[in-house]
């Protein structure tokens, strides 16, 4: 498998524009040029969803002195999208980790209260290691439910994989067996979107940007022709292929991290008071089961 990083142009050339392909667009907070500002396309199966990632509610520190308002502002931005999504996915690290179980629950309660301000009420959550690794997902499940699950929406099968509640970043045999059973029910042409927190492939192992047994999940998914993975964890956009599976990481809503291996340490990109939200953002996905996915990247501004 080729894990070489690709910029958008290279990625589009690699993907082609056939079924399962991706069209990229960028926008600022739902302004012009984006699907969200256009009328809803024709077709019963067309739909739009939003990906928010790595909100790290409870974080305090120099990489984002405005951490107490970034998520709240984002709720307002998503509510202002002209084309409202059918649902919103949160790809992990909803809260920033803490050793204090009571504080963890307090942060999860506050997070829940803030996102309840979203106009869209169909919210799909998944855990990040900051939410779930220190207590094997106990508090997370109290607030948000199962760590791995599936749902179907207008012809697309969504699979949420947990690669964080094991602090060693494994999916684990039991969940892989569950994934295999779930996939066995599907036709090889079934459009599938996988949602997870960490990259399933070895994006940059020296920074622990990988999943220990992610190759096993990829091997199972590789049998299907229309698979796309959306994930978080690395606090930046990244677009790569493993075989015919496309992997897209999302920007964070707390602080950006440097490009894989671009600097000696994976420390947050320093906060710039002149551009306080630089590198932060969220994603919209215009999905049609038998057509290209259209990905829009929104900056927070």
């Amino acid at each position, binding site marked *: 498998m080729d894990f070489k990083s690709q910029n958008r142009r290279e990625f589009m050339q690699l993907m082609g524009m056939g079924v399962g392909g991706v069209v990229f667009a960028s926008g600022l907070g739902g302004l012009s040029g984006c699907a969200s500002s256009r009328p809803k396309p024709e077709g019963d199966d067309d739909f739009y969803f939003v990906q928010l990632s790595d909100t790290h509610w409870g974080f305090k520190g120099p990489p984002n002195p405005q951490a107490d308002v970034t998520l709240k502002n984002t709720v307002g931005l998503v509510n202002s999208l002209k084309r409202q999504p059918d649902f919103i996915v949160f790809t992990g690290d909803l809260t920033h*980790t803490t*050793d204090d179980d009571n504080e963890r629950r307090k942060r999860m309660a506050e997070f829940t209260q803030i996102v309840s301000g979203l106009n869209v009420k169909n919210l799909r959550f998944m855990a990040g290691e900051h939410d779930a690794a*220190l207590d094997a997902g106990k508090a997370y499940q109290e607030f948000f439910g199962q760590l791995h699950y599936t749902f179907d929406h207008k012809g697309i099968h969504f699979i949420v994989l947990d690669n964080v509640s094991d*602090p*060693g*970043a494994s999916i684990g045999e039991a969940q892989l067996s569950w994934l295999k059973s779930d996939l066995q029910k599907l036709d090889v042409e079934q459009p599938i979107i996988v949602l997870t927190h960490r990259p399933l492939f070895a994006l940059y192992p*020296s920074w*622990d940007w990988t999943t220990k047994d992610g190759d096993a999940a990829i091997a199972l998914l590789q049998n299907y022709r229309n698979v796309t993975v959306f994930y978080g964890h690395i606090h930046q956009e990244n677009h790569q292929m493993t075989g015919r599976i496309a992997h897209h990481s999302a920007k964070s809503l707390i602080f950006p991290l440097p490009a894989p291996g671009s600097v000696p*340490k994976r*420390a947050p990109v320093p906060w710039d008071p002149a551009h306080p939200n630089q590198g932060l953002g969220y994603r919209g996905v215009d999905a049609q089961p038998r057509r290209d996915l259209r990905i829009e990247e929104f900056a927070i501004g």
Partner: protein
Amino acid sequence: MFSPGTAIALALLLTSFPAPAADQAPSPSSNERVIKVTAKRFEYSPSVITVKLNVPVVLELTTLDRVHGFEVPDLKLQAEIKPGEVSRVRFIPDKIGTFAFHCNIFCGSGHEDMAGQIVVTN
């Protein structure tokens, strides 16, 4: 067919030298350079480990607080460091360079900073 004595001796051998998990590996031999490394949230000491090319090394890893990991992806080395145990990682440096290591078991806020380097020199 083993005699009863042979069977007992074989059982003792297996007990003394179990599968080569890092935390159960046998003690270092005289030709290995031993380097003790301690882990605690969120640092290793030393964080820069300098070794010589082609000189066998055994890292003796211990933790002062909780479970940590130790992984050097470019050298394909890894270990789990458990409280109260010594995890030994053996290798013979066969290329000059600087190789990053990190904790690969999430250990809290600051986990992402828990990293270091192995420097292989002539």
